[in-house]
């Protein structure tokens, strides 16, 4: 039984936005230092390093390069390559390694610097299909967005509602990269980028890093960690195939990741008070709500337009602004916001949080991981 056996003992992050002159290794080190300070533990206790590979600047042996910069020779040191899902599968693999006795205290972290460095990866040609003009990460999500509209009649205002809520929450977050609120009219007035995607459907491009300390609940009690947050459920499942090859574009194996996480936690969607749903593009939020069972297939549009997802609603989403407003960094900041919500220290605190849910995903919905935290 894994429920509650492991905790997030500390969290840390850098500033978000434009951080010129910083390598991803340097950003990771700063976030790890802050996470260790938050956990109240010494660096020498760490014997596991689980880092997501930087999306914009891949390097071989990245887990070892980072370990060297951290002054560590860990028992387990690894870089994970699953796009955005790697953050939360890193948490899961850390828990499994601790369970197996292969390490005791793990750092899980991620950094990237595409804003001051190279954004080429997001505009890349998609194989030989570049001859047709098939370029960019955004276009893959646009293809899914369009199919969702075709199958379900999803109105533009539903996508807009996701963006407006994220920007409202981000405006209240002093650390957010983009604090300018957005109206639905403003959303609708923006020129299309790759139609049907508009500018405000798309994640920010951000420099920054975030890190967590993971250990057993027993260890956290023994050493007196002040604000350890228990991990109640974890799941991952991967659609894996390129968008072109998927038999279905409007549902992914997010469904299976959530099913496993809910089963481990002994909970269901109705037990969740606040959710951090990976919002690289607004379509991702709508589909995740449907695949997770918060609403039936094709009905997320009503769910998000009823005001339920804003602070004060019955399922506030992305309460620090998400990838659309806080930082476009892929995912770990969502886990940190869920930790703050469970601790009761969030800027837009939701009252009475017992269970907080997080989704992370990567590629063009190729990978997916689910995490449930709570007391």
């Amino acid at each position: 039984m894994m429920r509650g056996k492991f905790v997030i003992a500390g969290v840390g992050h850098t500033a978000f936005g434009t951080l010129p002159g910083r390598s991803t290794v340097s950003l990771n080190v700063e976030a790890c230092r802050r996470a260790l300070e938050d956990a109240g533990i010494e660096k020498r206790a760490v014997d596991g390093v689980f880092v997501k590979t930087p999306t914009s600047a891949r390097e071989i042996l990245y887990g070892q390069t980072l370990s060297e910069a951290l002054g560590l020779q860990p028992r387990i040191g690894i870089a994970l390559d699953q796009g955005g899902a790697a953050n939360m599968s890193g948490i899961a693999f850390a828990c499994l390694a601790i369970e197996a006795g292969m390490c005791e205290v793990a750092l899980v972290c991620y950094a990237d610097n595409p804003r001051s460095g190279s954004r080429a990866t997001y505009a890349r040609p998609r194989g030989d299909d570049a001859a047709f003009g098939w370029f960019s990460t955004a276009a893959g999500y646009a293809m899914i967005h369009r199919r969702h509209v075709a199958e379900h009649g999803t109105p533009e205002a539903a996508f807009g509602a996701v963006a407006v809520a994220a920007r409202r929450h981000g405006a209240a977050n002093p650390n957010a990269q983009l604090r300018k609120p957005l109206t639905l009219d403003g959303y609708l007035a923006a020129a299309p980028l790759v139609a049907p995607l508009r500018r405000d459907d798309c994640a920010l491009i951000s420099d920054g890093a975030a890190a967590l300390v993971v250990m057993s609940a027993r260890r956290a009690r023994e050493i007196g960690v002040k604000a350890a947050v228990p991990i109640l459920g974890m799941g991952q499942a991967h659609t894996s195939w390129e968008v072109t090859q998927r038999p279905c574009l409007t549902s992914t194996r997010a469904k299976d990741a959530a099913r496993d996480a809910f089963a481990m936690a002994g909970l269901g969607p109705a037990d969740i008070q606040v959710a951090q749903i990976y919002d690289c593009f607004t379509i991702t939020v709508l589909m995740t709500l449907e695949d997770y069972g918060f609403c039936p297939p094709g009905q997320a549009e009503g769910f998000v337009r009823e005001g339920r997802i804003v602070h004060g609603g019955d399922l506030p989403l992305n309460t620090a602004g998400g990838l659309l407003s806080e930082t476009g960094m892929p995912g770990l900041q969502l886990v940190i916001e869920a930790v703050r919500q469970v601790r009761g220290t969030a800027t837009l605190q939701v009252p009475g949080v017992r269970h907080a849910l997080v989704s992370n995903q990567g590629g063009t919905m190729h990978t997916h991981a689910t995490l449930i935290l709570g007391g």
Partner: protein
Amino acid sequence: MTLPTPEVTPLNEAYWAGLAAGELRFQHCPHCGHRWLPARRECPACLREGAAWEKAAGTGQVISWVVYHTAYHDAFRDRLPYNVAIVELDEGPRLITNILAPHESIAAGMRVRLELQSDFGVNLPRFAPVGAA
């Protein structure tokens, strides 16, 4: 400005040779009957080798499509706005293509037929609505 040219390899040369000869081909597995694009050495269903190339009828339907209003490559800058679509052939395989129709007229499920077009010296498989002149 040159367009990004497909890389012809021993694995996919039959595909590009087919297009040069005026036909769209897909692979099928003689062992399990699975059909697919793009080219690969092993059947992704039964994992065996020995895939054969087969000529597609050239008809299919639109699964989804997008319209670029920004160019990620200079070669496409003066083609804006242009569409990119996923088409499913009637035989099953899916491919990335362009639809030769006004963007507003494209719809999911729309029936289309193959129309080869030479672009940067290579025949590309594009699709036009069935019934279009």
